[in-house]
């Protein structure tokens, strides 16, 4: 992997993450608009298109990268393993920090829910009383689920996205343990 190849891949990864986050907004929008079927279908179409693009950028970006950097220059020295791992981690952590910045409220709500959850569960079991919050409309549930998914993605990225990074690395470098065997 050359330096230019790595930079192009990093740029596409960052783009993919933000396109994925943007696509979720349209999924939420699909259930927020009125009773007519046109706008929701359009929103779901945009969601599918953006999700597809995000997957292409994140997982199958080889063709895009080759198109971006042009023919491979054989004189360029290959980059070291640490540069690839470090580059991916820095990019993903930065994305995660930006995503999490807008999700602080939902994280606080989750923390508050964890604190009051035992009381709610005891009320449900002993007093057969279901808390009013569970009766909120479907679109509010969807908004909550999407916000939680975004917060989870942000936390995963801030932690360095270990599985995604391992998968990316396995495409270019052989694991040390395999050679030792």
């Amino acid at each position, binding site marked *: *992997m050359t330096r230019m190849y790595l930079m192009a891949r990093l740029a596409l990864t960052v783009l993919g993450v933000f396109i994925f986050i943007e696509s979720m907004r349209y999924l939420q929008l699909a259930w927020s608009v009125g009773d007519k079927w046109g706008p929701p279908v359009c929103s779901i179409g945009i969601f599918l298109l953006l999700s597809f693009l995000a997957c292409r950028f994140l997982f199958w970006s080889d063709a895009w990268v080759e198109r971006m950097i042009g023919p491979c220059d054989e004189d360029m020295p290959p980059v070291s393993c640490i540069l690839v*791992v470090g580059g991916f981690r820095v990019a993903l*952590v930065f994305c995660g920090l930006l995503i999490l910045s807008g999700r602080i409220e939902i994280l*606080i709500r989750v923390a508050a829910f964890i604190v009051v959850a035992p009381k709610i569960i005891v009320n449900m079991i002993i007093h057969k009383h279901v808390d009013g919050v569970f009766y909120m409309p479907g679109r509010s549930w969807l908004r909550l689920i999407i916000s939680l998914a975004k917060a989870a993605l942000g936390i995963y990225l801030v932690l*360095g996205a270990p599985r995604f990074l391992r998968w990316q690395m396995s495409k270019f470098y052989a694991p040390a343990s395999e050679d030792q065997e």
Partner: protein
Amino acid sequence: MNDLRKLARIILVGLGIYVLIRHAIGVIAALPYLFYGGSPLRGYAVGQLVSFALFAVCSGLVIYALIWKADLLSAKITGIYESDQAEVWWLPFTFRLAAVCAGILYLSWGISALASIIATYVRMADPRFANRPMPWERLVGGIIQLPLAIYLLCGAPHFVRWQVKKTLEHCKRWEEPDGISDQEAAS
């Protein structure tokens, strides 16, 4: 090292100016609402003006620190490392740069949230809107965002140290047979 310090300065000053312009546009857009007497939107305009004033002070401090005290701050971002770690000296630098950039954006959004809180309470002074308080999670979120921004602006030392440690651990799992990927070798 010197080039990277310059790069850090360029990125940080650029980001600071971008956020300053963003807030200035917000203020200009809010100015007309100041002239609608008794309008609930006056709270919004006051909030925007407070936001701008707070952010102008913070941005002024950041830009002053980056232009007049550039060597001090960029040296802090670049860090000083032992000779045996010379091959990875850039790693903490990039993590710290990413943290400081995120910190500038957090500061911008945190100050907007603070301004929004102030605007809400200004609006609540009007008896017609006294029963419309800000949701508590937004209030707490806005307050938490500022210390987070300050921690990130300081370079998030613990976070960066942990990230560097994890990155080096991750690197140990891989080795490069010839430094070239299978795809490139095939092509």
